[in-house]
Structure formats: C-alpha cells, structure tokens
C-alpha cells in the first residue's frame, strides 16, 4: 500500500492526482466505509452462545474459593470443578441469566467470590481512581502545553552557554 502511495508521488502528474486522492473526498470515503463496517459489525449478533461458552464466561467472573488467585475457570481444584458443574446444571435448566447464576453461587457459598469489584461504597474507588488519574493526567498535559505555548523561545543564558562549552570541550578531548 505504501509503495503504491510513493509511486504515485513519484510522477509529476501523479503528484496532482495524489493530492486529489488524498484530499478531503478520499478521507470522507474512508471514514464512511470504516463507520459503516463498524456499525455492521457492532450490531450483528454472533449467533446463540453454547452452554459451554456461557459456562466459560460465568466461571471467569468467579474466584475459586479455595485457590490462591485463580478463577473458577482456570482452577483444576475439586471445589472449582464442582462449581463449574453446578453452573453448567443451572445453565442447562435454561431459566436463569448469567447474573442470576452468579448471585446464586455467591449467596450459596456465603463468600466473596466475585472477581469484579463492586461499583458501590469503598470498592468503587478501584473504578473511580483510574478515571480520576486519567482526568488529572489530561489536565496536567493541558496545563503543561499552555505554559509551553506562553513561554517565549528560550534564550540561552550565560550558564547555559557554559554548559554547552564544557560539553563541547569534553567532546573534543576524546
């Protein structure tokens, strides 16, 4: 693709053509195609999930109650195997949503087994802090760029000049 671009650039007449192709019409066509494709992709369904796909999805959200840091999906311990089997049984009954199944498992074992922290109370900090940090970062960048924009082009001071001279001397020595 790149080479095509550069071949077009090469010729003199190609240059004009190149400019026309890469102008606004070309970009508008590009964005339009991309958007249509994305919308088609985002709205079409992937077909019905199999029971095992649902099992995988649910078990990835649950912590294995007896393991160190593994999910029910990953663990091979008897308890995790058992929970997987129970989830599968619930799925096969066909009457419950994923969230209902997770709630059932949670109440049944009276344990904090969800791997996704809640979005309420103190736990919500784990969601809020990244957003807060992101906002701070963007704001910090904005302030920094404003200050850089306001500052006049730096004029080297005498001290700067001394550093440069020293550096040049050092370079000369080698």
């Amino acid at each position, binding site marked *: 693709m790149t080479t095509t671009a550069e071949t077009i650039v090469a010729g003199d007449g190609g240059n004009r053509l190149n400019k026309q192709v890469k102008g606004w019409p070309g970009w508008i066509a590009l964005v339009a195609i991309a958007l249509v494709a994305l919308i088609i992709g985002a709205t079409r369904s992937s077909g019905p999930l199999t029971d095992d796909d649902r099992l995988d999805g649910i078990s990835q959200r649950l912590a294995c*109650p*007896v*393991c*160190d840091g593994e999910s029910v999906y990953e663990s091979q*311990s*008897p*308890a995790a*195997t*058992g*929970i997987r*089997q*129970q989830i599968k*049984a619930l799925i096969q009954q066909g009457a419950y949503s994923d969230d209902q199944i997770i709630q059932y498992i949670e109440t*049944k*074992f*009276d*344990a904090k087994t969800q791997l996704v922290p809640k979005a309420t109370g103190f736990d919500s*900090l784990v969601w809020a*802090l990244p957003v807060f*940090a992101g906002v*701070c*970062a*963007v*704001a*910090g*960048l904005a*302030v*920094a760029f404003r*200050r850089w924009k*306001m*500052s*006049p082009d730096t*004029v080297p*001071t005498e*001290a700067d000049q001394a550093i440069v001279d020293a550096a040049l001397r050092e370079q000369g020595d080698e």
Partner: protein
Amino acid sequence: MPDPFAGGAAAPGADRDGDREGDPLPTAAAAKRVAPLIVIVIAVVVAGLFWILIGAKSGESDTADTPLMGKPAPVVKTTTLDGKAFDLQRRKGSWVVLNFFNSTCVPCIKEHPELVKFAGEQSALGLDGSEFYTVVSQGNDHGDVRAFFAKRGGSWPILLDDDASITVAFGVAKVPETWIIDPNGYVRWRAISIVTDDLLTRVLAQLKSDFNLALAR
C-alpha cells in the same frame, strides 16, 4: 489513593521547575511552589502504600484455615454407596469425621491404612467414638471405589457427591482432606493432605476436652 506515578502527568511541567534567577518566565515563581508539592504528594502516597504493606498479613500458603471454622457445617444430604439416604443434620450428638477422597489419588492410598486403624479404634469406643465417613469426589467411578475398599479394607459408610455439592460447600482444595465436626454440627478442624491415626486421635481428644470445658461453663 492518588497515583504514585501521577506525578508523571505533571512532571513535564515539573521539568521546568528548577528555573534559575533571571528567568523571564512569569510562571517561574508559581512553578517553584508546585515542585515540592508534587514531591510531597508522591512521598505521602508511597508512605501510605508502605504503611498498608507493613500491616498486611502474610498468610500461610498451605492454610488449613477455612471460613467455615467455628461455624455450622454445610448441609450434607446425599446417598451412600449402598444406596441409603444420608443427612448430616440427623447425626447430631456425636463427633463426625469426614474424609474427602478419590480412589485414584495417590496420597489417599497412602493414607488409607491409617484411616482403617482410626475408624476401627473409634468404633471400638462404642457410643463415645466418633462417626467416620468418606466423601467420594464427583466423577470417581463407583465401581472403582468399591474395588478400592474391597482391596484395602474399611467398612464405614461411603457418601457420594456426584453433583459436587458437598465438595463445593466445604470448599475442598484438594483430596485428601479431613474435617472434624462437633456434636452440635459446627466445624472444628480441617486438615489438607495426609492425616495419621495418631494425629486424628490426638486432635479429637483435644477438641473433646475443649468442648466439654465449654459445656461445663
């Protein structure tokens, strides 16, 4: 908790903070005040993290602790290998020892003679002895279990767990595991991996004396 690195967001600004005298920038004075602030914020955050980490409990990795310790044992309602109905809640009144087991598990094979010895001693005690049960893991072939017990001895009731509900309810990490439940149906002790007759007898004696002391009060 603010980001220990969030200083990074401001750091490009901080780069300019060491401005020397004579710098024409009007913001220089403001910048000088910002730099120490950022350092202080970072220091405070790191100190906070430090404080939390110092206080953090370092758990034993092979813990025999369980959230169920001292709490009522989960429901164990199932059938035995012989097809009889079984309900743990009906067994209140004597100590219960549950052994989670799988006939293909090598440590279970190693452990078995000790369990045979222990179960024999307990049943010899008559009413004072504890009840002993084996819970078979889900997926373990019933024929294999029968063959195992026929070959290696042991005549206590064998509980099936074909829907894994017992394993899950107790939170069994790996077989073999042994649990002791007191006459009121509360979980009192749990061991992961192989137990011996000697250990079980000692632990049971200790638990019984604690239990009777508590009753006496």
